[in-house]
């Protein structure tokens, strides 16, 4: 994606150069003065840590013999380490389910809010967005209460029907327990972005479609959804980046779901455990860097597949 942009861009630049002639020195200086402060932070806190993580991941620290250069041994270890692989497989599986669920709910809500006008609809828009203002940690704490057997409402609600409540903190339901928390947390935010995009569509298009005899469903499927596809792709990319680095919610629920969520439940939790509980910074960095690589590759593939739909990064 980025590569193809910069190629096109370079070609464009040559052309503008020939037309406009040389850029004055003053413009170079002013440009760098504006970009410089961010550039400094970018190099110090993104490029340097990434390079450092890569560097650390090429070494191993042993009790006897100290630190030694091992080249890619840590990566060979990570990609055969069941803890890392199971965690990575979990977040991939979770992304494949959680992201479509969130986007479908967000899209449905955005379409309803766009089509129906009433005071209740305006109220709903705010209420649905509310969880975005809640830190994910607090969201997980709140849902942890609701799942709890000692003071959650599930026992009461299922008791009404004489059924035993589902335990969302047990090992076979934790997937759905987390799915619910993530959907609750993010669907409203995605809805607002899609809603803003829908509101930006020129309403004369709907009139024209209606005159041509299009039904409400046809307007939705043929006009509204295609026109907001850049916004859809934007939130898909963010959901993908966010879900693959899953950490906060399982880390918080760990305490409540003892035995269900281990310290290697997701790759990020595993990296955290390696670095901060076991002081194994080399292997922790390896996992971080490998996870960063997995995210980058997944997003890159996704953007490549959707490039014709009108990407947001252009």
């Amino acid at each position, binding site marked *: 994606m980025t590569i193809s*942009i*910069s190629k096109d861009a370079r070609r464009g630049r040559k052309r503008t150069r020939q037309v406009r002639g040389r*850029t004055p020195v003053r*413009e*170079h*200086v002013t*440009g*760098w003065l504006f*970009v410089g*402060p961010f*550039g400094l*932070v*970018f190099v110090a*806190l*993104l490029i340097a*840590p990434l390079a450092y*993580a890569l560097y650390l991941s090429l070494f191993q620290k042993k009790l006897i013999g100290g630190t030694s250069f091992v080249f890619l041994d840590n990566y060979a270890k990570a990609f055969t380490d069941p803890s890392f692989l199971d965690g990575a497989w979990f977040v991939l599986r979770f992304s494949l389910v959680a992201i479509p669920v969130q986007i479908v*709910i967000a899209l449905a*809500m955005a379409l*309803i809010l766009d*089509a*129906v*006008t009433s005071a*209740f*609809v305006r109220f709903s828009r*705010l*209420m649905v*967005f*509310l969880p975005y203002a809640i*830190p994910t*940690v*607090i969201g997980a704490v*709140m849902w942890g*209460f*609701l799942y709890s057997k000692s*003071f959650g*409402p599930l*026992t*009461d609600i299922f008791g009404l029907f004489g059924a035993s409540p589902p335990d969302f903190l047990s090992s076979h339901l934790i997937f759905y327990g987390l799915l619910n928390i993530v959907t*609750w947390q993010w669907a409203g935010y995605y809805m*607002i972005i899609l809603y*803003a*995009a829908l*509101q*930006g*569509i020129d309403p004369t298009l709907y009139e024209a479609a209606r005159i041509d005899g299009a039904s409400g469903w046809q307007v939705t499927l043929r006009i509204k959804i295609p026109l*907001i596809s850049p*916004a859809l792709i934007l*939130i898909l990319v963010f959901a993908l*980046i966010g879900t693959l680095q899953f950490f906060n919610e399982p880390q918080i629920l760990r*305490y409540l779901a*003892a035995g269900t969520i281990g310290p290697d439940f997701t790759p*990020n939790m595993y990296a955290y455990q390696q*670095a901060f509980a076991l002081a194994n*910074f080399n292997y922790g960095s390896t996992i*971080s860097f490998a*996870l*960063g690589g997995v*995210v980058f590759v997944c997003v890159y593939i996704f953007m490549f597949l959707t490039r014709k739909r009108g990407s947001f*990064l252009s």
Partner: protein
Amino acid sequence: MTAPGHTTHRSRGPRRHLPLQILLGFLVTYFLVPFWWVIVNSSKDASGLFGGGNTLWFSGQIDYIGNLKTLFTYNGGIYARWILNSTLYAVVGGVGATVLSVMAGYGFAKFRFGGRRFSFAVILGAVMVPATALVIPTFIMFSKLGLTNTIWAVILPSLLNPFGVYLMHVYARDAVPDEILDAARVDGAGEARTFLQIALPLMRPAIVTVLLLSVVASWNNYFLPLAMLSDNRLFPVTVGLGMWQGIASANNAGSTSLWSLIILGALVSVIPLIIAFFALQRYWRGGLSVGGLR
């Protein structure tokens, strides 16, 4: 791109689809249930909480005042400190990130300097780098500089917002015409003055959006402060409440009173941002479409 306040007014009258509104009602209930549970249960003491009464309704006595007193005096008033820390990290980190993004986005959009295309491509690529992948190496770097377990360990990494730069670039490119900037320069305004007095007001919707996204991101941050801080007086409220929850779960029998503190603590911690969101609605609603729509 919609500017705020310019929402399209459909010419047709209000349309009320009852089934859709009922469906929406169910969804709204779902989104509000956790809030309701927290509001109801933060009025209870430990016996009301564990007494087995209705968990979705108030118990006999409602004691918000007493619980609030306990919350703010527990452990030498540590909770108030956490809230202040969160506010400090969110405001300094969020405002700092916004200032840097606005300047850089404007610079990339309006000046043709050497290395511009390349640096911008690198920043676009950085949007895809997961922030958590940076935490461990940043921690080791900071520990060598003696910066871990200080407020800077949390604030400095929050200053980085590549997506903010991208948003500001897109917005500045479209919303700030070159002609106006040139006119200002011809009239003798320096670059700084042109930026502050001409460009900034034109970029306001995008600035508010980037500010909102940055402040919320810093306020929500958990992994970074969890890794960087060991002194609990420096914790933001997310790490603090997470710690309390760990303690309360670890010895379930001995810490029933801690549970009521966590419930009320969760409620109190979400109030500032909810108020901010309601108060600033007018500003963020339009701005969120920036970048999604082109």
